């Protein structure tokens, strides 16, 4: 066990995977001598060499397409996209190729690729350094989508992602890259993909969140304790395939649900959680399903603190839900 921030945990997981398996390699923009613009790959070039930590030209379709080709051949590439906002030049390679290769080939060509990318707001990044478009990827069959919220999960889930036989989009909440710090395991300790984590148990209402929304959601739940409200907080961790048994079980217990994410609401990821519950936990529901989300606008710069869900908004929504009917 060592203490690490979330971004350090990412760095350690990459190190562990590369040391364990010579077929793991990294590629992306500015990941080599510069160590990544967030320093996630710091020191890895020196340790593993330029053959395994590859600085690429400025082309996301190049990065992802190259990773796909490497994976077809049998390697385990981990691609870094500098910001999720810049993934779209490579979106075709993701949805048309990466997600569908195993399927279209009748299982002949698995595509063992991880795409790591920082996502989300709260760093004064404006429209193009702040977005949370996880729903695009979660809607794409063939991809797995993982979002850690703690250093330990970042470490364990990234290791699982790197050794997972399927393509994984690994979204790193950059807002809490350095603000949360915690113990991480040593060595090849993996956290399973596809399992939610109960952050705190509760009986009155279930709050579903992930990534950088876990800290404000935790704060909101804690603050409600004083008012005698027992909120259960579920960190989804894997968005696809989602741990629906855990989601449903929680609401079967509490009868109420509040879903939190920073992405725009309309057709956002939270809609799927609501839809699952409105179908599979309908008879347990005692109140409308609430969503606390970003607004249905692009991500603003100067006013980002108004855009992002915070503890007060989450708290209010939980209160309204518990008091409903």
């Amino acid at each position: 066990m060592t203490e690490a921030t979330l971004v350090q945990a990412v760095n350690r997981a990459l190190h562990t995977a590369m040391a364990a398996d010579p077929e793991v390699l990294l590629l992306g923009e500015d990941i080599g001598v510069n160590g990544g613009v967030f320093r996630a790959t710091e020191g890895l070039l020196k340790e593993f060499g330029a053959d395994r930590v590859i600085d690429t030209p400025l082309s996301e379709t190049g990065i992802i397409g190259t990773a796909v080709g490497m994976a077809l051949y049998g390697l385990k590439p981990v691609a870094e996209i500098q910001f999720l906002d810049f993934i779209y030049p490579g979106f075709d390679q993701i949805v048309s190729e990466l997600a569908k290769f195993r399927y279209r080939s009748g299982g002949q060509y698995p595509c063992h690729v991880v795409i790591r990318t920082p996502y989300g707001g709260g760093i004064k990044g404006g429209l193009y350094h702040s977005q949370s478009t996880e729903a695009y990827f979660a809607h794409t069959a063939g991809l797995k989508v993982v979002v850690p919220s703690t250093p330990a999960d970042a470490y364990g889930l990234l290791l699982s992602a790197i050794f997972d036989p399927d393509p994984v989009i690994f979204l790193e909440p950059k807002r809490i890259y350095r603000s949360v710090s915690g113990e991480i395991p040593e060595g090849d300790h993996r956290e399973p993909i596809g399992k939610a984590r109960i952050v705190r148990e509760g009986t009155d209402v279930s709050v579903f969140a992930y990534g950088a929304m876990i800290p404000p959601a935790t704060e909101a739940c804690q603050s409600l304790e004083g008012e005698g409200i027992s909120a259960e907080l579920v960190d989804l961790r894997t968005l696809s395939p989602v741990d629906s048994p855990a989601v449903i079980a929680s609401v079967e217990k509490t009868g109420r649900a509040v879903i939190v994410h920073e992405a725009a609401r309309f057709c956002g990821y939270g809609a799927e959680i609501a839809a699952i519950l409105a179908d599979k936990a309908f008879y347990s529901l005692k109140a409308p399903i609430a969503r606390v989300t970003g607004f249905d606008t692009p991500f603003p710069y100067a006013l980002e603190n108004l855009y992002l869900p915070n503890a007060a908004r989450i708290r209010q929504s939980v209160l309204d839900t518990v008091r409903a009917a």
Partner: protein
Amino acid sequence: MLLARAFDERCLTLQRQGRIGFYVPAMGQEAAQIGCGWALDPADWLFPAYRELGLALTRGVTLDELLCQFFGNAQDRLKGRQMPNHYGYRDRNFVVGSSPIGTQIIQAVGAAMAARRRGDAIVTIPFFGDGATSSNDFHAGLNFAGVFRVPTIFFCQNNEWAISLPRSRQTAAKTLAEKGGAYGVPGEVVDGNDVHQVFRAVRTARARAIAGDGPTLIEAQVYRLGPHSTSDDPRRYRSDAELAEWKQKDPIGRLKHELLDAGAWTEEQDAALLEEVRGEVAQALARTETVGPADPTSFLDDVYATRTPALDEQRHYLEEMLKAGMVRQ
């Protein structure tokens, strides 16, 4: 080459008869593909588009395999997932292609980097058309190849048309080969109707690549003698005169006359061979047309390495629907 042509002709008929859903003929591009295929090593990795019948034959892909893919039947290696012509066989290093244009070009570069890392002395070869040179992944592929000096041969079959767009409107560059210059990748134009010239160019490029001297872009100038696909009517956009002119250069006729002139071949042999290949096609068709359909729940597999719980649930639902006769293939 004759086999490819005969197979193409039969498949066009099959489609017209409604026995297969769709077909993309390779007619006119046989010499380019077969010349290239012969110049390669079986260990080399091919990244086809959808018009590479000749190439597939050089890899020993059988007519039965192809037809099963077109039918999407129980013996289709791809389990009925893809449209006709989008076949591939891992054991033949013939990667399963897709419809989006150009995506395989950069993938071939990644595979080449992987092969080099493994220490495998092979080359990778993406196949693509004139239209694909406008794609994002042509740009990324050539650029990465130049920077990383990968052992990749970019094999462009310029068949003068991208559906209805003539080559001259695809780009203002004089040749497609010269696009290599933008990436520090040497480019070369070859007469794609001359099987020997193609063979030599690919051989040379392969030797360079294996020696560590980097990638090559080859533009094989050919002509698409048939329609773009069975959904296309080329008379809407190109002249009979143009077609007639190129028919004169038909690579099959050309090779035949070469051989006849050299005294290495006779009209009788030619007729016999034609009959033979037609027979082969007919037999393959007879064998494969009776193969049963794909397993109806199989389309829920291979999304991931193992079915997720949600997919298990959906499979269960599908089985119920099938049992109740509510859905039909």
